């Protein structure tokens, strides 16, 4: 999980994820074209994202395609945010019961 936060702590890497969110399965050349950075710089950032599990690559013919892997972010969500969601849901249930009792 440390690697996920380190990877997300950089604006260029977040932008790369945004680019893949907008259109999944892009090549290095496509991604490089939209960033004010050298090919080597983009490759370095992609490697950090891949090591954190936030992106994964597949080959299609001679091309290497990059895909956003949202699963680690889901795991972060489940570790903390889901607890709030449960509390929120149970608070709403209690509110509903109170209102219904008042109406009786």
């Amino acid at each position: 999980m440390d690697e996920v936060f380190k990877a997300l702590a950089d604006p260029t890497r977040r932008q790369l994820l945004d680019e893949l969110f907008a259109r999944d399965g892009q090549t290095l050349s496509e991604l490089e074209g939209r960033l004010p950075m050298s090919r080597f710089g983009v490759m370095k950032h992609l490697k950090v994202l891949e090591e954190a599990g936030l992106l994964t690559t597949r080959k299609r013919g001679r091309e290497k395609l990059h895909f956003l892997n949202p699963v680690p972010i889901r795991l972060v969500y489940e570790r903390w945010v889901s607890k709030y969601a449960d509390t929120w849901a149970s608070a709403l249930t209690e509110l509903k019961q109170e209102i219904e009792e008042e109406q009786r």
Partner: protein
Amino acid sequence: MREEEKAYAVIGGRGSMSVFEIYVKTTPELLWEAITDPEMRAKYSFGVRVESDWTPGSSYRSGVPGVIEIASGENLEVDPPRLLVQSFTAHWSEEVEAEGTSRVTWEIEPVGDSCCLRVTHDQLAEDANDELFGGWPMILSGLKTLLETGELLDTPGSLRYSGAAEA
């Protein structure tokens, strides 16, 4: 380097594609069982069972009888405990049913004392409804929790159809 070492299933073809990867501390055999056993599947997949005899060319259906049909298709490649390729037609709404048939590939790769599970959903329309593949992160993290802790992951919505058949 790493890419060359990975034995990938044949991917691509027409349409767009989404890839989901998760590492699970388990064996390929247990992971395969969790994917193909109806009772285990229901524990992390919105409470929905998947029924099939899992032979190559066989059909599968997932849903809660009399409540909701989720998906159906054919098991195109079955190579336990490494590879399962399925055609996929969604049925949970008219909108998703109209999207037609896509393909789901499950790949299990042992890595140290864990497994990398890679789900590739491809042959989707270029502007495919994201409901078709948007559930994978929730399903895969529920699968990880089940295999690593034996517990159910009951985040909001994740087991929405469990108990629906009895109700």
